[in-house]
């Protein structure tokens, strides 16, 4: 009796089954199959296994696997001008925020430092008076500024918020005097201590909104065209 087929022989039988054995090898193996029942049995087993697998029913897909645009991550091509508007809006927004932040920071610093300097407050009074809407405070400050020497150039160019803070710091002192009105007291309250933003800040805000709206409109138009083309 022949021994059971080796792994190599099994492999050859499997290749013979798939008709992928070279012709001369196939001829030799077929001749052996006639003579060797063990080999013949192994061949039959391989063939039966293959037949079993081929008899498996092909299942239909339970659903369609087509991809949606969102699944595939397909987006409309970015319009050429979109990045320019996008970055412009971002830059403008950053400037806008910085201007407010700078104003607040400088306002706080000046406000904190202005108390000991209250004595020199009259120096800033004329400019500060412009920012103070109350008539009483203006009256309170007017004599002080009138007595002073002309303002140095730096003081004239000093930002209004800082001057305003100095005025606020000075206001209670003025309030201690006889002619200080209720409006001067109100000016010293914490709420009124917040400095005014620079004049260009609203413009920056508007510019930010405008650029962002342009970027959005460009993107929206590109998406719409893309959908229509599809």
């Amino acid at each position, binding site marked *: 009796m022949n021994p059971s087929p080796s792994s190599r022989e099994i492999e050859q039988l499997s290749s013979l089954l798939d008709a992928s054995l070279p012709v001369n090898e196939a001829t030799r193996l077929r001749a052996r199959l006639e003579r060797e029942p063990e080999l013949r049995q*192994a061949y039959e087993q391989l063939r039966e296994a293959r037949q079993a697998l081929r008899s*498996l029913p092909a299942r239909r897909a339970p659903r369609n696997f087509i991809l949606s645009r969102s699944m595939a991550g397909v987006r409309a091509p970015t319009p050429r001008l979109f990045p320019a508007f996008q970055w412009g809006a971002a830059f403008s927004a950053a400037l806008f925020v910085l201007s407010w932040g700078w104003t607040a920071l400088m306002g706080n610093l000046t406000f904190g430092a202005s108390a000991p300097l209250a004595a020199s407050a009259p120096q800033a009074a004329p400019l500060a008076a412009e920012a103070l809407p109350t008539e009483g405070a203006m009256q309170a400050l007017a004599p002080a500024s009138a007595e002073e020497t002309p303002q140095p150039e730096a003081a004239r160019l000093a930002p209004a918020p800082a001057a305003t803070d100095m005025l606020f710091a000075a206001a209670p002192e003025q309030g201690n005097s006889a002619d200080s009105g209720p409006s001067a007291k109100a000016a010293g309250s914490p709420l009124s201590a917040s400095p005014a933003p620079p004049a260009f800040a609203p413009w920056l805000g508007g510019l930010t909104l405008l650029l962002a709206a342009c970027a959005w409109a460009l993107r929206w138009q590109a998406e719409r065209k893309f959908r229509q083309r599809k």
Partner: protein
Amino acid sequence: MNETALIQDAQNGSLEAFNRLVLAYQDALYNTALRVLGDEERAADATQEAFLSAFRNINTFRGGSLKAWLLRTVTNACYDDLRRQKRRPTTPLEPHTDDDEEMESPRWLADPSMTPAEKAEADELEHAIQHCLNALPLEFRTVVVLADIQGLDYSEAAAALRSPLGTIKSRLARARLRLRECLQEFWELLPAAFRLQKETK
């Protein structure tokens, strides 16, 4: 359907062209995933993953058999799924003997605890074959599914699995033999109509 034109369009970003290819091959991919994973829901997920991956990587397709290329993506998706599944405790496919040696024979698959009623339920050819397929090591299972169920030739299967031709031949032969041994356990339970027919070849 001009497949080459659709592939080209898909490579140029046309989702519509790609979806037409999806419709043409979804049954093949789903069946492959089903036979490899043995679970309908997971097979559907793997098929979807495979198509998504295929769309993202369609530009890496350099010609040849698209079916083989797509079957490779679904096989990879199945491997990923099985890796995820492996993190959970499961019944080992090949149990160990008392001496801690792996059981080579698939005879352990004939569960002695199965009642006659359960056996009767399992006697359908499809269930029996799927049961035996699940018992094969993964590398054997994928080869036998691609070659014998999807009908890929050796070179296509080798390309799909990125394995040498010799490895494919060897694994296929061993997988068939083990399947045959496993099916032997169910042989007498199979209805006559389901018995294997002798090929006329």
